[in-house]
């Protein structure tokens, strides 16, 4: 294994000290992606606030079963979207997540895909619920 296949310091930092970890009671949107057979499951909770007409991510939490990269990507993804407008948060990409971590080993890129998907699906889940209410 060459050195660039190992984890960056940033990955290790987020893995050992995950941000926004836990459950969010009364979340406005929730999504679970991945499955235990593949070894990774991520669950993202969001609380949506309003500034004038603009909706934004007021709070976000995650829970993850998975490897170092799975935990680190979910942690940094929550950090990246917290306080962001919903319209911006939904645009998060797996490349942006991987870059924010100082890169990921190629075999671990799928973790960043999962993290981006979890964020998007949590927002979708919120929007669906909002539509049903109105």
């Amino acid at each position, binding site marked *: 294994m060459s050195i660039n296949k190992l984890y960056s310091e940033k990955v290790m930092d987020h893995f050992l000290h995950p941000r926004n970890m836990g459950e969010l009671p009364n979340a406005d949107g929730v999504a*679970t992606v991945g499955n235990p057979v*593949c*070894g990774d499951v991520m669950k993202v909770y969001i609380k949506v606030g309003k500034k004038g007409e603009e909706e934004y991510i007021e709070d976000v939490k995650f829970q993850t*079963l998975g*490897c*170092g990269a*799975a935990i680190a990507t979910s942690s940094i993804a929550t950090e990246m979207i917290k306080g962001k407008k919903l319209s911006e948060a939904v645009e998060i990409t797996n490349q942006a997540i991987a870059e924010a971590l100082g890169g990921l080993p190629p*075999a671990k890129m799928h973790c960043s895909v999962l993290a981006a998907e979890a964020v998007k699906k949590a927002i979708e889940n919120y929007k669906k619920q909002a539509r049903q209410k109105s």
Partner: protein
Amino acid sequence: MKRIYLDWAATTPVFPEVVEEMARFWRVDFGNASSLHRWGREARKAIEEARERVAGILNCQPEEVYFTGTTTTSDNLAILGVARAAEREGKTGLVTSQIEHHAVLDTFKQLENNGFEVNYLRVDKEGVVDVKELEEKVDLNTVLVSVMYANNEVGTIQPIEEIGRLLKKKQEEFGNRIFFHTDAAAVAEYLSLDVQKLGVDLMSLGAHKFGGPKGVGILFVRKGVRILPITFGGHHGGGLWPGTEAVPLIVGMAKALELAQSRTKETGVKVKRLRDKLIEGVLKRVPDCYLTGHPSQRLPDIASFVFKGVEGEAILLRLDDEGIAASSGSACTSGDLRPSHVLLAMGIPEEEAHGSIRFSLGRETSEEEIDLVVEVLPKVIDDLRRMAPKI
């Protein structure tokens, strides 16, 4: 922070006596063993002495001992070399097990792509190869059977002598040779390497697993085994493994093998006591986990577990942060997305196999270290489980 190394099955520290034995071959007796002059003769003498020492331990002739690069190269040479010789006689039947090291499995996969028929034997839930299935699969076309001496991930010891006897019987029945190879990389500090007792025709070893240096291995090839070289470039190593001989490494390996094999009993007793303490402590203090491999027919150094609802690499990294080195058969450490082929072959479901951790102890492991692991591990597992969503 105290650092605790419990990954002896990955590699071991070199015996101090081995470092000493190797010393003069770097700058004083540095000659090429193929040269005719004094320097060359000194190197040749050292290698031939090492070969005799190794042969003494394996209970074979010195001419049956070949020095190679690593266990992986020994495995490749044994399997490819025998297969190529067999091909000339029109034979293509090969048998191995599903739980071999990748050095063996990947080599057989190569041969399979080149038209050989390979049977991969099943194992039971404790990781023991099915000898009955072997008996059914061996036929007139079979030329090579390769089964590891003990599994490196879960520690299960395979019935090598029984397989040896079975193959002998089959050979008499068929009236032709079936060569028997074993990868013995995991066992040298604990089990007998007597090739006559084991009934093997080829056996692979790697020095760094038993207190020798990295980068040198042994292949035992019984006289009469039909084998061709797979690399070319001269007559070194009896023409079977050409290339300038690594004199210091070979000398160091012979010394390490002597030390390891002269202490198997005491090392085994010491390591097993601590290993059992670790197993007992972990099973008692961590909920939802179990030991993998055979309960008694296992190497004394290996304790491998599955922790449900956690991922192995995450456990490994958290333990590393606590100063503890272990290893994992999780997909995440293997580079592909499937967990350990060994655990899957044993019937462990994928979602559980992702949560595997192997601790391997060694001659220098202390009781204090085991106590610390038993204390730290439950907290690590609990932390990670609390991070996971309820499914």
